[in-house]
């Protein structure tokens, strides 16, 4: 095989790696974007919920004896667990603070992320955890140009669009979604026509956090589940949301694509400084368009 074809193959396989990373990033950051767009909370604790989702996936999968059944149960139950936790947080803390400055909310969610981080340490301990890839997704599939793609990555590539479409349907086609979009523009007006805005906000918050939990479950079989995975991810998700346009779900998708691909291709271009490419991409985008690529809801 000549070098050109080899390079092509390398690039293509890196793109597939990048795309499966994109799926995770998109699922987490779309939830963040939803919360940011409607509730105006720059939620740093979002990353903690992602981490909790991954740890819950470990526990649930263990409870059902690992393997395939464990994974599917984790996929079902862990996001629900995260959603319940977020509902408690929203009713207990956030609902009293919607009128506060963004800066205060940012710091509050940072405080929550510290609390959640230690709670995870308390419940699950500080060791690495791993969740097995279910039996169905063992093995590879050769699609194009003889590149073997792990089946689990293909599964991720499938889940991403499904989540995107479901989220689009939720925001645009359900009554709850429509109310939340209205409330994002003018909260008081929506309240004035007799809608319980507080309840709508709680629902949107829970949906957003559910996505964080889902991202955590999906990432669990591919990485070591460990403390501190929240801190690296939250920055990435935050930058993706900013890059895409605050509150714009399609923006989150584009942002995640740019970030994920810059990350995976960057490693190919310059292995040592691969980590720099996604950040550089964000800086370039924001220098050209400070409000993000797509229309923000702010």
């Amino acid at each position, binding site marked *: 095989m000549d070098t050109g074809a080899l390079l092509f193959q390398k690039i293509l396989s890196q793109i597939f790696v990048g795309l499966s990373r994109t799926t995770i990033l998109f699922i987490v950051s779309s939830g963040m974007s939803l919360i940011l767009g409607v509730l105006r909370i720059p939620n740093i604790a979002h990353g903690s919920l992602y981490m909790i989702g991954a740890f819950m996936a470990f526990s649930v999968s263990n409870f059902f004896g690992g393997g395939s059944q464990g994974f599917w149960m984790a996929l079902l139950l862990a996001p629900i667990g995260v959603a319940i936790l977020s509902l408690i947080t929203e009713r207990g803390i956030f609902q009293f603070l919607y009128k506060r400055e963004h800066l205060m909310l940012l*710091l509050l969610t940072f405080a929550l992320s510290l609390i959640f981080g230690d709670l995870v340490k308390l419940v699950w301990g500080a060791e690495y955890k791993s969740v097995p890839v279910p039996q169905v997704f063992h093995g590879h599939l050769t699609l194009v140009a003889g590149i073997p793609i792990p089946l689990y990555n293909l599964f991720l590539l499938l889940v991403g669009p499904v989540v995107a479409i479901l989220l689009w349907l939720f925001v645009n086609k359900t009554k709850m979604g429509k109310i939340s979009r209205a409330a994002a523009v003018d909260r008081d007006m929506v309240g004035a026509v007799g809608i319980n805005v507080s309840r709508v906000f709680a629902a949107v918050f829970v949906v957003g956090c559910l996505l964080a939990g889902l991202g955590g479950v999906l990432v669990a079989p591919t990485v070591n589940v460990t403390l501190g995975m929240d801190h690296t991810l939250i920055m990435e998700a935050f930058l993706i949301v900013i890059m895409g346009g605050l509150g714009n779900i399609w923006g989150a998708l584009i942002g995640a694509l740019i970030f994920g691909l810059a990350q995976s291709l960057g490693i190919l271009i310059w292995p040592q400084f691969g980590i720099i490419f996604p950040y550089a991409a964000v800086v370039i985008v924001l220098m050209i368009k400070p409000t993000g690529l797509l229309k923000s809801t702010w």
Partner: protein
Amino acid sequence: MRKGTSTRNIGIGIAVVAVFFLLPAFLPRFYVYLISLMLVYGLLATSLNIVLGYGGVFQFHHCVFYGVGAYATALFLTKTGVPFILSFLAGAVAAAVLSFLMGIITVRLSKLYFGMLQISLGSLVWAIVYRWYSFTGGDDGIHGIPVPEIISSYNGSYYFTLAVTLICLFLIYKIIKSPFGSALQGIRDNPVRSGMIGINVKRHLLVALVIAGFFGGVAGSLFVVVDKTVFPDMLFWTLSLEVFIMCLIGGWFSFFGPMVGAAIVIALRTFVSGYTVYWALVYGIVMVFVIFFLPNGILGFLEQRAKPADEKKLIEKG
């Protein structure tokens, strides 16, 4: 009345400085080190507060300047034969230059958008420092940085830190009270009106950013003197938010608020982590309480309580 208060304040100031000066004679080594750290973080938080509290700028990633200052000093000390004092200054200058470059890009934006571009630029700098093994030592950082004998001892580094911090606080205070500082506060309260009366808003903010970056860099260089190490976490965004928290807990509308906040946070972290590994839990809960009940910070709260009393006195005196 006013003259009385200012003499009283000077008296308190001298007393506080004297106490700080005498502390190493009474305290064990560890506490001297701890107070040095408090001074370093206090200076860092105060430097952030120049733009945050007085300029109303959302400088989300201030620690970049702290880290770059520390790295510049460390690199000059380890890789060149430049005298210590020049290496020390190089840290602050490097931070100021970086702050200027970042400021040119970010200053045209406002509030949250400023903060977001700033945090992404800062993350870029962090990523470079984190990966550039041959130059910055990568994620290992640099250890055992050679600091001259006279200021590398515990008491020596304490007195050096104390002196530099006092000088910097004095300078920052003078800057805040100068016409420039008043213009900055005007911009914070109403940028449009400030522009109308002929203040060049962008240029004032840029200068303020450079000043804040400079003193952030000084804090970073001081950390090198106190700890003799640098590591990439010094530029990580979590530390920036922690410094934000310091300003918040102390009160970012008071000059000494960030100082007090830094002391509280460092003390909390040190002593709570002595009892339990779950210190972040305690720390987080304290933060939630401050945000709920003391949104102006501890000094802000005390000042608010003191004010009515003063006014009452004035009324009584007629």
